[in-house]
């Protein structure tokens, strides 16, 4: 027997909306698009970038797809990082948040009382499966919700570190860049490295090889680097994600941090480049790094 409901099938038909509405919406789109067109031109310096040419690749399960700085005062943070890294922000939007423009890795800010850390959101192939794995591994995960960019679940690992997992509708290539202001390295700090290895190994498919410091591990994905390059560091008092931002001139970068009300160590040469350990004027820790391109 045929299903009477099948008669409801209705392929979308074009309908011209009210011309006033159409014109208003077009004007709004033009305004929005125009507003964001200049970040390339206003970058602090584009003359001698340290970017490494690399073929765009599709973000993989386990890569970092989005980070957000969670601080009590977003306006203050926006000013600080604009002064230090030359960041520009997308206009409009929710006043509790900011979206940094022109970075390869999507980077936002969000107001959260009592929070002083970077929040990382990881790309996964199947967000519902990832939520199950988070729960099985002893973490907590909210039911996935649908957002304009994909389906996301907000999670907390078994050591209290908040993070997200998300699945996008379609694949788009990922960009790897070490221009000024980009994150070139992420350190996931946890009290217990072994527990974190088990948790993130299960949830994201991360693999680990011993790093340069005690209880330090380099995070690997399918035999290569996670994007951006990421390390796990155990034995820390509390769980946090600490970014390293690329700068072209580390001495000048350190001076800008201090001038903007933050703190910084003097630059130190490491096997992989010159770095300084900093905190912004709200106490969020980060590194500046000048890594060979």
């Amino acid at each position, binding site marked *: 027997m045929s299903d009477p409901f099948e008669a409801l099938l209705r392929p979308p038909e074009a309908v011209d909306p009210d011309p006033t509405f159409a014109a208003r919406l077009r004007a709004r*789109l033009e305004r*929005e698009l125009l507003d964001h067109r200049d970040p390339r031109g206003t970058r602090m310096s584009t003359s001698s970038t340290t970017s490494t040419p690399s073929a765009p690749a599709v973000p993989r399960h386990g890569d970092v797809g989005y980070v957000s700085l969670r601080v009590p005062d977003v306006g203050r943070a926006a000013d600080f990082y604009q002064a230090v890294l030359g960041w520009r922000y997308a206009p409009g939007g929710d006043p509790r948040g900011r979206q940094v423009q022109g970075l390869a890795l999507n980077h936002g800010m969000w107001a959260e009382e009592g929070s002083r850390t970077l929040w990382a959101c990881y790309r996964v192939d199947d967000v519902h499966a990832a939520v199950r794995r988070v729960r099985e591994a002893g973490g907590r995960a909210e039911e996935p919700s*649908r957002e304009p960019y994909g389906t996301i679940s907000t999670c907390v690992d078994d050591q209290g570190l908040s993070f997200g997992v998300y699945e996008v509708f379609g694949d788009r290539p990922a960009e790897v860049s070490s221009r000024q202001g980009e994150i070139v390295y992420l350190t996931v700090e946890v009290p217990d490295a072994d527990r974190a290895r088990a948790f993130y190994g299960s949830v994201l498919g991360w693999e680990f090889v011993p790093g340069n410091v005690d209880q330090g591990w380099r995070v690997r994905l399918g035999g290569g680097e996670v994007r951006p390059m990421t390390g796990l560091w155990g034995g820390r008092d509390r769980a946090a994600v600490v970014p390293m931002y690329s700068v072209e001139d580390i001495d000048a970068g350190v001076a800008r941090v201090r001038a903007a009300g933050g703190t910084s160590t003097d630059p130190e040469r490491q096997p992989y480049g010159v770095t300084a350990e900093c905190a912004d004027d709200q106490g969020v820790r980060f590194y500046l790094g000048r890594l060979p391109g």
Partner: protein
Amino acid sequence: MNLPAGVEPDPGAALLVLYDTALPQVYGYLLSRCGQRALAEDLTAEVFLAAVEAVRRRPPPDVSTAWLVGVARHKLVDHWRRAEREQRGLRVVQGLPAEPDDPWDERLDAMIAQQVLAELGPHHRGALVLRYLDGLPVPEVARLLGRTVHATEALLVRARKAFRETYERSEGRDV
């Protein structure tokens, strides 16, 4: 890696070029599914503003009319979800047990069917629109609604039942 600004194709400009042809498609889809002009306009604006957000990403997605209609479908699902949440606050939720589907041999009148859909609760309406007006397979409907396939099948059974009851009442009233 970015090309110099002058060389890089501007996805924002491409979106504006697409706007004139895509707008009637997106609006027509939304209007036929939600049946309210003001709501269809609001959702249409949301779709194109989401596209502006999307072309800000580096590199941007491949924005096409089909992509925009896909976003429109998500906006519609979000709308029903919000509406359902609001309504749920107003009434006592009665969880109907999933009943075996009762075969129904009836030639549906398209006009009455549209009215009936408009009278149903947002969750029933959403499930039926995605499954029957859009003609999507059940797993795809489940994915859009953020439910399991099993829960979606149960929802469709209840939605068809609600539709049929309202339809038969409307028929008695109107014919």
